[in-house]
């Protein structure tokens, strides 16, 4: 499948997802699809399973029932393709304190994508880390470390991005810049699913709302075809 994606193609589709943790149901009967050119925000109070849902979509969490489809077929038949096409950035994004930002990017990208070093350096300059490319990450601030992780988004070619609390520790300007980046990506046909603490200023955002956990009637529903 190498033709450009159409809006109608379902990249990821979840059907009747149910997840239980420590004896309580986080969500049940949750169905939605992720199509190209959309941005979806997973919403809900603390402990409602936002991170868990993203991890299920990424394929990191196995403790769920239901079905997830990739391009219309059950996901488990195409694991290598799914892994190549879905980028997941968790709140711990795999940044090593002892490595420099450049080395970190090299290591993170090495198995996924062919990216020459000059692009990586360029990306680091773009996120405002130009002077720090050769400094161990332990000397960077929390926001700067987050920028190292987000620098991947400047060249990532995966059609689906799953971003868990991507804006944490970023300053206001950086948040706005990342929001612009995501909007551009969506315009090109990328699909973004994310969780954030603040309400992002993004047009046409879809929402998946998760109910508060611990309630017996806790039901999650995918809301509205936003836009």
């Amino acid at each position, binding site marked *: 499948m190498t033709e450009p994606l159409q809006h109608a193609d379902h990249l990821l589709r979840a059907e009747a997802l149910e997840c239980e*943790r*420590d*004896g309580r149901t986080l969500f049940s009967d949750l169905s939605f699809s992720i199509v190209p050119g959309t941005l979806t925000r997973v919403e809900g109070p603390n402990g409602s399973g936002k991170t868990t849902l993203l991890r299920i979509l990424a394929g990191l969490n196995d*403790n769920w029932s239901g079905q997830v489809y990739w391009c219309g077929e059950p996901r488990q038949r195409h694991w290598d393709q799914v892994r190549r096409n879905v980028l997941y950035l968790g709140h711990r994004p795999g940044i090593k304190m002892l490595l420099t930002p450049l080395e970190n990017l090299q290591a993170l990208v090495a198995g996924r994508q062919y990216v020459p070093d000059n692009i990586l350096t360029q990306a680091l300059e773009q996120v405002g880390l130009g002077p720090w490319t050769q400094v161990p990450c332990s000397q960077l601030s929390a926001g700067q470390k987050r920028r190292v992780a987000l620098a991947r988004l400047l060249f990532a070619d995966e059609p689906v991005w799953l971003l868990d609390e991507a804006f944490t520790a970023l300053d206001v300007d950086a948040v706005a810049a990342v929001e612009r980046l995501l909007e551009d990506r969506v315009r090109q046909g990328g699909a973004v699913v994310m969780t954030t603490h603040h309400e992002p200023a993004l047009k046409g955002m879809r929402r998946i709302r998760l109910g508060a956990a611990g309630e017996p009637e806790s039901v999650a529903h995918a809301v509205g075809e936003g836009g």
Partner: protein
Amino acid sequence: MWQFFHKLGSPKWFYGIAGRFMPWLLGFGLLLALAGIVWGLAFAPRDYLQGNSYRIIFIHVPTAFLAQSVYMMMAVAGVITLVWKMKLADVFVRAAAPVGAILTVLALFTGAVWGKPTWGTWWIWDARLTSMLILLFLYLGIIGLAHAYSDEKTAARAVAVLAVVGVVNIPIIKYSVEWWNTLHQPATFKLTEKPTMVPEMWVPLLLAVLGTYLLFGWAALYRMQTEVLRRERRTRWVKELIAAGGGSQLKSRGA
């Protein structure tokens, strides 16, 4: 076949069917085990080499056999957990592990006590006892891992991996221990390896072995029922069962 498998996965169905089997397992198990033990203790002839101390065999061999089989069963259940994600398989592992560990302790203890009159020492680094000791370590590892995780599903799958890894290692361990034994000790008189055992000896032994297997079956099912009740406590059938029977019925079904 598929339907049977699917049904096996249903905890409610299991709970009912286990309750039907358990009285039989308990009854026949007690009958056979006690018959074997009484026969072995009082009526089987004296061994001309070891004297009466050999009568320990009627509990040593059943516990040792069972301890090893339980580990194998746990590994099989582990494979089922990992491949088919059948809930009951990991319920079994959780239920069986402590029983297996206690059986291993029993086999070790009876072996050691038997060693005193036979070899004149409580412990001897004999291949069989050493293997049992390592088996005990494996059991303790499984129990430790099972309790270390707060999340049941994770614990079950982690334990499944460990049980499978352990069972792959068991033949290697056995072979290595036997080889090590010949390296360090001239072949001594070995427990339970007798060229000729008269029927008056092996028939009660067989009865005792069969009896303990059946009793283990009872214990495993009973403990699995408990585990099922705990895990399914939020489902309607368990709530109704507990509300209706008030527990007394639950208990009587087991004991």
